[in-house]
């Protein structure tokens, strides 16, 4: 279980997160949504241990992050963080990279070699598997980064915009199915930040809305509909929650158009 307690994070003097409290249960798939620059990536980075928040803390399975070397080492083994723009080893082949990541997460040998093969096949990277990553297209680089996240077998996945970066429709479909299955059948906890409501709908068990550095709502999609008294698609529900002025802005834009 992930527990975020009173998390506050500043960049310089600008507060990005203000007293955020959040709990994610094991096997839950949580979508993090919110306007740009409202702290989705910051919250994920704090959960991942990349950031040290100015106030508050993060607990993973009852252990507080950075509280002791033993706790932190145990947490790091449990958590996989895939940022929006990771740095990849350009001169390694995709297969070497995946093996290295599996090695970092101490995945069993038999499982690792087999899993690498299956992931490469799933994301249509078999032909490029033994080529250096620098020769991959940007979409293929994103795919290999996702494969690296999945090859770890980590019980907690923190994914920052995993569906962006030029993934093709087949890869998006594959990733959606894999994440759903991991959460539903293998009790993997997934927290993902994404700006695309269509992806979250039907995939996330709950959606947390970040607005001005605070959690504005955290409910299942149906719960959000009830909260906003809106029966439309999630996209419209989110507009009400995230930026209620957007619809008015659109109206104003057309109304003020000089013919």
């Amino acid at each position, binding site marked *: 279980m992930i527990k975020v307690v009173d998390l506050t994070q500043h960049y310089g003097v600008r507060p990005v997160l203000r007293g955020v409290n959040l709990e994610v249960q094991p096997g839950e798939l949580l979508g993090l949504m919110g306007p740009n620059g409202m702290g989705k990536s910051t919250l994920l980075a704090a959960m991942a241990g990349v950031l040290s928040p100015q106030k508050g803390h993060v607990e993973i399975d009852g252990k507080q992050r950075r509280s002791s*070397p033993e706790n932190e080492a145990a947490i*790091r083994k449990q958590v996989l*963080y895939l940022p929006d723009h990771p740095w990849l*080893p350009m001169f*390694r082949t995709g*297969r*070497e990279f995946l093996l290295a990541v*599996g090695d*970092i997460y101490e995945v069993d040998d038999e499982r690792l*070699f087999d899993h690498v093969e299956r992931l490469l096949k799933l994301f249509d990277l078999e032909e490029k598997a033994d080529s250096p990553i620098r020769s991959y297209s940007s979409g293929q680089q994103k795919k290999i980064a996702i494969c690296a996240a999945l090859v770890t077998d980590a019980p907690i996945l923190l994914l920052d915009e995993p569906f962006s970066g030029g993934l093709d429709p087949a890869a998006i479909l594959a990733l959606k199915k894999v994440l759903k299955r991991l959460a539903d059948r293998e009790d993997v906890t997934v927290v993902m930040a994404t700006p695309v409501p269509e992806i979250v709908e039907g995939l996330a068990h709950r959606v947390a809305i970040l607005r001005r550095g605070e959690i504005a709502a955290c409910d299942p999609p149906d719960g959000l509909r009830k909260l906003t008294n809106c029966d439309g698609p999630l996209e419209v529900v989110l507009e009400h929650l995230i930026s209620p002025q957007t619809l008015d802005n659109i109206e104003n834009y057309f109304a003020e158009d000089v013919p």
Partner: protein
Amino acid sequence: MTRWLRPILPRSSPTWYAVWGVVWITIGLLAATQAFYVWSLVRLGLPLWVESGGELGETSRDLACVILVAGCLAYGFSRAAAYHPVLRRDYLLWLRLSPWSPGKVLPLGPVRLVWQDAVLLAVATLYGGAVLRLPWPVVPVSMIVPYLLAMALYFHTTGHRLAAWVLPFGIGLISFLWFRPGAVVASLAVLCMIAQITAHRSIQTLVREETALPRSVALSAAALSAMKRTSTHAPFGAMRDETPLLAEPRDRSRLRGHVAHAGAPHNAGWPLDPLGFRETKPLISYREAILFSLLPGWYVYGINGFKDVLPADFWGPAGLGFTCFVVCAGVAVRLLLYCQAHFPPISLWGRVCTLRLIVPRYDVVFLAPILSVFCGLGIPWTLMKWGVPAAFMIPASIPLALLPLLNAGPSLPRWWLTGGHRIATGIGVNRVLFKKI
């Protein structure tokens, strides 16, 4: 003759070729300088077998001395580096999987000193002493000391810590015996014997026991391509079935380690590499840190062995400058290790604006450097003012400066795991090998 010299002659190894290149260039340059000297004497009409004692003769002799000493240093290091399996992981892996046993001769060449080395040493010493009029200990020391230091490193790697520390401290003792060549030779002989005995046990440990190899050791191209073939073209299971020696899980794990790491510790990029760090124990024990701090101080103190030939104010300004350099370099290395890619949670501007000038969870990283400056510069300076001799205090300042840097908390793993920092890409990511996608 060639056959007899074969154990110490070059083999097909890039390192060996490089080092032997230096040795042969040394010999060539020596021959050239001597030929030039003789030619000059002939041109000037001076008799060949009478020492000129002039400027030309001195210059030629000095040049020959420098070349000879450089060649001896290169040879000494090469003898330790060329055939040692710890530097050649493919060779080590082969030794581990072959029927080779520690009692047998190492296939590539000897790591321990052999009679051929003694002959070479004797010839070089005679040439240096009799022809070039070098002090007698110079050639043996410059040939054996690099060998012993390299062996000490290997012993440390394989866990033979006693010998690993006795050798470097023993080398420091030689400076006090410098003007007694017999004592120098005797002490070198004792140190060589320790190295000979321990080398056998060290290689045994390395080959037959699971000693973790230093990740910084480069994996040779042969091993890399072989491992790559394993991972890309052969199902791992099939290889296990075909190769009984790899049936043990630890062998398979080791093989996978070779494939995955390919000789480099960091190869998964950011943030996988920094977040993949899970070592909780300090990288250096307190005892080792104390010994490591004392060693450079011991070497500097050894300069006192030459006090009869040193200028009267040797330990004056130059000594203080040296201490300042050591302290600054130590502090810089520690800060670089701790702070590279582990940045403060709030910028300097943020600190000023929020009036949080001190962030205790991050600023703890500066305590050890401050303590080092105080102990390494402040204490010696004060004690020297009170009359403690500089010849003792300046060497003592080095361990005083290094001790806090090596021992004061937080330890590097504790800092990386629990420090109040943000893990940034920064200079922690090699921007040539890694790219942001």
